[in-house]
């Protein structure tokens, strides 16, 4: 299968949306397009597994390499390994769910769906890129849609949040750009595969790794550059929140992972800083969540905490922990998208997101409430859901690091789960249980599109939670390969 299809499908969908005449057409095209993406991603998974089963051990499958800017040695080099494929599947699921959740969007609906689809195109392009320049290109493609989505369709102080988000993400890209220049002028290539084989000299790695890691880290809400997350998520319309937390933040995590694999020596020598920042993010995010009264802020701050686990897993630099980081990315993407979807559904009915004003929703909207509970339980890491598998793997990997500092960081991070349980159970209890206020007593339950969207995401969560070997089977060969370089770097020390 030609991977460019993953870029062309959204592009085509976006163009068709521009040409469509009324809301019904727009919805239909949007849904059909996103289902086609999901179909393509599923088909890709099948082909990928077939190839692996047939004994194809190449690191990247479905590779194509076309010259783009010849004079500058920039190539359109695409290909996927298991990790990228996991991300693509995650994106496809979230996109379908996001489109379904926005079914009732009527304000400037054409522009809205156009931008949503454009955003997903950026994500797919990012995950299939093997060339650092195209990677960077797609990373930035997604910034403007986010800005417009939040600024036009958002709520609250939306303009400020949109501006803050756009500027911080641009600052992240600026750092990434400097790092890329450093790599380019020392290896004369943007090709990740090539650079990985050549290796980068130690001095260069040490100088430019911080640029790249911090740059991508801003996208992944790395402490102390997480401040765009709460406002951005809280102001965004539901589908945009889902995309932001479910897909966009994963761009950062994925980028950090690739950079760590590309510059293993630097990653190893800076790993204590990475761990430190990740641990702070985990703890700080968890405690900050406890203080929140707005459901969206609760989920946004808990996202900071959960993305901290991704960074922690990467920083620990061993096979188990990196596996855990990848699973955590997928799991958090699904879980947080589900959470935002549930919050959006509640908000569209009750017109409030304040925990204090809600209560007893289980009586009138049993489906939505159950979704809410499932998302919450997944978030606090209950066995059977994906969150447990992911966090457990990260902790197991982290504990393999015998050094005292790493042990302490691991213990502190693990302790945050208790805090998570507190805020999740409190929020769930207050919104769903207890007496219901009179004005909410006559509200209806989820509609077909909302049920479909939630169902999709829940299926994803359960598959990972109940059969973790499936996703392990997918990503294990890829992490094995990443570890070759990393192990080499660590044993050299």
């Amino acid at each position, binding site marked *: 299968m030609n991977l460019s299809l993953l870029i062309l499908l959204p592009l085509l969908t976006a163009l068709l949306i521009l040409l469509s005449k009324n809301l019904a057409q727009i919805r239909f095209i949007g849904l059909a397009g996103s289902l086609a993406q999901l179909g393509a991603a599923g088909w890709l998974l099948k082909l990928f597994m077939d190839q692996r089963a047939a004994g194809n051990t190449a690191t990247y499958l479905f590779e194509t390499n076309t010259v783009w800017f010849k004079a500058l040695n920039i190539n359109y080099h695409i290909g996927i390994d298991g990790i990228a494929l996991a991300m693509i599947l995650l994106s496809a699921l979230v996109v379908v769910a996001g489109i379904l959740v926005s079914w009732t969007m009527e304000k400037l609906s054409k522009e809205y769906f156009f931008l949503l689809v454009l955003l997903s195109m950026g994500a797919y392009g990012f995950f299939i890129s093997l060339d650092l320049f195209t990677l960077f*290109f797609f990373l930035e*493609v997604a910034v403007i849609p986010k800005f417009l989505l939040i600024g036009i369709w958002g709520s609250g102080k939306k*303009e400020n949040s*949109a501006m803050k988000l756009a500027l911080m993400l641009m600052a992240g890209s600026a750092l990434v*750009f400097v790092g890329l220049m450093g790599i380019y002028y020392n290896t004369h290539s943007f090709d990740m595969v090539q650079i990985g084989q050549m290796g980068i000299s130690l001095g260069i790695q040490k100088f430019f790794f911080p*640029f790249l890691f911090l740059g991508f880290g801003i996208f992944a809400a790395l402490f102390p550059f997480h401040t765009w997350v709460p406002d951005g998520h809280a102001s965004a319309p539901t589908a945009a929140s889902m995309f932001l937390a479910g897909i966009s933040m994963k761009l950062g995590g994925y980028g950090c992972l690739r950079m760590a694999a590309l510059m293993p020596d630097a990653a190893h020598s800076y790993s204590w800083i990475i761990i430190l920042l990740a641990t702070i993010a985990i703890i700080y995010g968890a405690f900050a969540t406890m203080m929140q009264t707005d459901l969206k802020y609760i989920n946004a701050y808990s996202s900071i905490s959960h993305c901290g686990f991704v960074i922690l897993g990467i920083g620990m630099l061993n096979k188990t922990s990196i596996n855990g980081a990848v699973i955590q990315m997928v799991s958090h993407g699904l879980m947080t998208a589900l959470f935002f979807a549930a919050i959006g559904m509640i908000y569209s009915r009750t017109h409030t997101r304040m925990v204090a004003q809600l209560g007893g929703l289980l009586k009138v909207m049993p489906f939505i409430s159950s979704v809410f509970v499932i998302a919450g339980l997944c978030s606090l890491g209950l066995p059977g859901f994906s969150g447990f598998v992911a966090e457990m793997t990260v902790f197991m990997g982290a504990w393999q690091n015998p050094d005292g500092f790493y042990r302490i960081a691991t213990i502190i991070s693990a302790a945050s789960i208790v805090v998570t349980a507190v805020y999740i159970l409190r929020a769930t209890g207050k919104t769903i249980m207890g007496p219901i206020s009179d004005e909410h007593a006559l509200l209806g339950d989820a509609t077909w599109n909302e049920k479909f969207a939630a169902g999709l995401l829940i299926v994803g969560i359960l598959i990972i939670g109940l059969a973790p070997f499936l996703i392990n089977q997918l990503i294990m060969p890829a992490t094995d390969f990443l570890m070759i370089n990393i192990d080499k770097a660590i044993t050299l020390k």
Partner: protein
Amino acid sequence: MLSNIFILLRQELILSLLIFLLLFIKIGKERSNETVLNIINILLFVNLPAGLFGMSEGGAFNGMFTTNAFIVLEKNILNLAILLISMQSYAWLKHHKQVAEFYLLIFTSLLGMFFMISSDNLLMFYLGLEMSTIPLAAAANFDLAKRKSSEAAMKLILSSAFSSGILLMGISFLYGTSGTLSFDVLTAHIGNDPMQLFAFILLVSGFAFKISAVPFHLWTADVYEGSPVAVTAFLSVVSKAAVLFTFTSILYKVYTPIASVWYGVLVVLSVATILIGNLFAIRQDNFKRFLAFSSIAQVGFILIGISGSSQAGSASLVYFVLIYVFSNLAAFGVVTVVSALTGKENISDFKGFYKTNPFLSWVLAIALFSLAGVPPTAGFFGKLFLMMAGAAKENYGLITFAALNMVISFFYYLKVVKAIFMEENEQPIQKLSVPGVTKLAMYICVAGIIITGLASLVYDYIYSLSIGL
């Protein structure tokens, strides 16, 4: 031999013919403005392919004039810019009394620029420069009833005269120390002699005035604000591009022996230019002043590209200018239309613009995204390639500075987008009917913004023609 000259100078000759034609139109029978405008636009359009065929390498006038494929391409980019400006000023010129005169001035100025770009001798260069500046001052005065317009003209002519004086002083010192003005011979005489370095500084100051690099930018904002929008567009795109082309070719051709000196000068200039341009752009409310300061910042980025002093350096300059033509003229096009039809020129007037004029809003937004350097617009590639060319010197402090300044510029461009799409206005600009020609120009600009970047063959073509140090 004679026919050779005709082919080598074909772009200049066509332009001269156009100027004479305008004179005939003027003395002929009375014609409506629409007819004149249509004739001119068609002729300008026909003029474009002239650069594409025929022999293009050679010199004329005893080594005064030189041309090659790269120079022809540069002139063609300017031709394209003139065409776009002309198409976009349709609404403004339709009701103007002196249409033919306006074009006379603009064309004469362009002719001067052509000779300046093609110059192979400092005398020829100076001649072209003056020929391009003086008509511009008259054109800046073309909002005949506005006092600000004549103020702008006055400021432009005074500051240009001043900078020309400095430039001339530099040229005369150079002549005094080397005994020649021809580029080919000069190179051998350039050295670290203090007198020559002083001459070089004077020369650079003269250039910096024309491209409004900080600290020689003070005239820019007032002149841009006072001039009619079409002239502002011309000043900020065409005139700057022409001087930048010449500046680069002089640096790369003549000043090769002291490359390390001018690298330092360029770094200082670009840092100051980017920072000051950005900081002042944030505070502007008048759209023309806003674009003026943002264009100052853009020049700073261009200087970084030039400082790379490689083949990629000059290629990225021309590539960026081509993209800049599309994106800046798209922005100016919208401002021209709005200003001609409503008289409003402030950014705050554009609040809620999207509700009434979705088409113009998208054109403006895409143009601003391209100016800010956001993918998938061409501005992303243009700015990145400039910085890549600059990074070849491995001066990562400079690159980090520039990259972070892109964030600042992103802020003020997004502020305009925010006003257009997200903010409310009690008295929004009403629905405007855009003339067909202008709409076509905007389509060309948007197509250019999207295609020039993604289609790599544009860059590859420019790269194949360009020369390094």
